[in-house]
């Protein structure tokens, strides 16, 4: 085998004692897992020697359905990828189709997209921290605090799009409906309350000795491995790699906003937790600027049409910084009403591939924590 394509293998840990291992299938419905996901672990006592993630239980043919249905009909299906962040999924797909068809998004629609995407990021990070704490044994309190705040954001989504989670809001070349009366004031009110909520979460958790003992130095992901494995999002930044598509690609209008990209030092669970807290704070900053600056005007490109949409033959890849990492849609058009090829690059799946490397040598109880800190949604992993 040539050295250039040498495949990577995780480190091998030798078991102590007589070498007999206990093989456990964790899942597919372990209460701590985020969905139907199985981890086949080989244990030496409490120590994890091997770990094999098994997914596909929630596979529902998303890509093939996308190739068989029209461009517009795939939009509601993208809601179901990462069902916590339907609006960012909509945006990534709309971005890919807009590149393909050469559509321009009006100014106002760009601002609406940024506002909805940042609200999505906040509610995703808040609930992902809640779930992480739930898995750590802090049953209820942090998750309920997160959900209390998430509820306010979901109410805003319902007011705007008609649905709390399956928003189906963005269209090729803009957004579906104009903002309802008083919606921006509602956003401003919720955003004004968010720093207080983040402070509350920090007071509740950040200094907690149990949290620190269980997360610091646990599940370390080295920067080099993270880059090689294609890990993106808060996971990658917790390992200290400065890579945020909002800064790299400047997609949409992100070059107009002032915000910082938080980076971690150690790449452990605690850093991932902290990165999510800090990202929420930066999102609040972006939201404050966007709500202040949003202009009046149309929300739809006049060239776009709902029925009979047939982009010219070609290919396009649209990617955005979704709350979980780089979410990309790759489309090939052959000039027909449905794409010839429809491919999703899901951040959850690719972030999950390093699970074994992070878990080896740790106790089985910590594997649940490491798994929780990846922040995945099975709808996106299996598609």
């Amino acid at each position, binding site marked *: 085998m040539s050295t250039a394509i040498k495949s990577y293998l995780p480190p091998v840990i030798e078991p102590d004692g007589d070498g007999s291992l206990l093989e456990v299938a964790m899942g597919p419905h372990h209460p701590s897992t985020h969905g139907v996901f199985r981890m086949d672990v080989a244990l030496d006592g409490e120590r994890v020697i091997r770990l094999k993630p098994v997914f596909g239980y929630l596979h529902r043919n998303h890509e093939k359905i996308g190739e068989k249905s029209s461009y517009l*009909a795939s939009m509601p299906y993208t809601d179901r990828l990462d069902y916590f962040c339907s609006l960012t999924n909509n945006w990534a797909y709309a971005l890919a189709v807009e590149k393909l068809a050469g559509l321009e998004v009006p100014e106002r629609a760009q601002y609406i997209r940024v506002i909805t995407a940042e609200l999505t990021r906040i509610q995703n990070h808040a609930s992902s921290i809640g779930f992480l704490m739930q898995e750590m044994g802090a049953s209820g*309190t942090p998750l309920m605090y997160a959900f209390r705040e998430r509820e306010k954001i979901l109410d805003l989504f319902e007011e705007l799009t008609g649905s709390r989670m399956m928003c189906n809001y963005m269209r090729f070349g803009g957004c*579906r409906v104009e903002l*309802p009366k008083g919606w921006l004031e509602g956003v401003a009110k919720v955003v004004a309350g968010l720093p207080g909520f983040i402070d509350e979460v920090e007071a509740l958790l950040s200094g907690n*000795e149990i949290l620190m003992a269980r997360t610091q130095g646990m599940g370390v992901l080295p920067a080099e491995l993270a880059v090689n494995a294609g890990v993106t999002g808060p996971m990658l930044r917790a390992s200290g790699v400065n890579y945020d598509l909002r800064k790299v690609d400047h997609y949409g209008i992100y070059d107009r906003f002032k915000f910082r990209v938080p980076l971690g030092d150690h790449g452990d669970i605690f850093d991932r937790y902290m990165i999510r807290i800090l990202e929420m704070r930066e999102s609040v900053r972006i939201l404050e600027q966007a709500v202040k600056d949003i202009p009046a005007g149309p929300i739809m490109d006049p060239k776009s049409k709902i029925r009979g949409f047939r982009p010219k033959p070609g290919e396009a890849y649209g990617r955005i910084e979704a709350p979980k990492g780089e979410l990309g849609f790759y489309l090939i058009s052959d000039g027909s009403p449905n794409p010839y090829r429809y491919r999703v690059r899901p951040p959850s799946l690719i972030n999950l591939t390093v699970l074994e490397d992070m878990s080896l040598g740790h106790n089985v109880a910590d594997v649940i924590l490491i798994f929780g800190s990846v922040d995945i949604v099975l709808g996106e992993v299996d598609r």
Partner: protein
Amino acid sequence: MLGEGMMKGLAETGKNFLGSFVSAERMTTVQYPEERIAPIENTRDFPFLVYDGADDASDEAKLAGLRCVACQICEKECPPKCIYIVKSTDKKPDFVGKPQIYPARFDIDISVCMSCQICVEVCPFEAIKMDTEFELSTTDRFGGLLLDREQLSKSNGHYRAIHPTEAAEVDARLAEEKVKAEAKARAAAEAAAAKAGAAAAAPKPVAAPAAAAKEPSV
């Protein structure tokens, strides 16, 4: 000091617990079946067919007022393909009096429907809209969730009640269309009358009254 962080966290939960006795804002739980939150206007879940007429109209009256002309666009565009339409063989007058075909059969399987409202977006006749009713549990999971035309037909008054802002826009648009159609019909009638009269007289004034009748509608 060890345990300081934990005490700080406990103080935070204590603040929330005690605060819930004094501030209504901290009491976020709603005791659902007894208590309900105010509905949000844009909420959508499953589609229904709009008919023009009274809320408690008979089945014949519902069908007479039905806006759907069985063009089957929604059936074609529906992502999970949960709409089934059979066109009628005869025609009935629509809201402007033009004879149109109507759906002899219009079924929506709401166990398949994913509430995406693409049918609403593509409908050129404002005939299908999203309902807000969500308590739809049934003991018959196949037949009970397959809604037929009679079950789907709901009055325009119902639409106005659940989505007031949107319905007002739609009503304005339809009224405008109706005025236009009436003006056109009047112009056509006048033109026909003028033509009949003009058979004897000079052919010149035929165009003039038609143009005059059209003007206010533009």
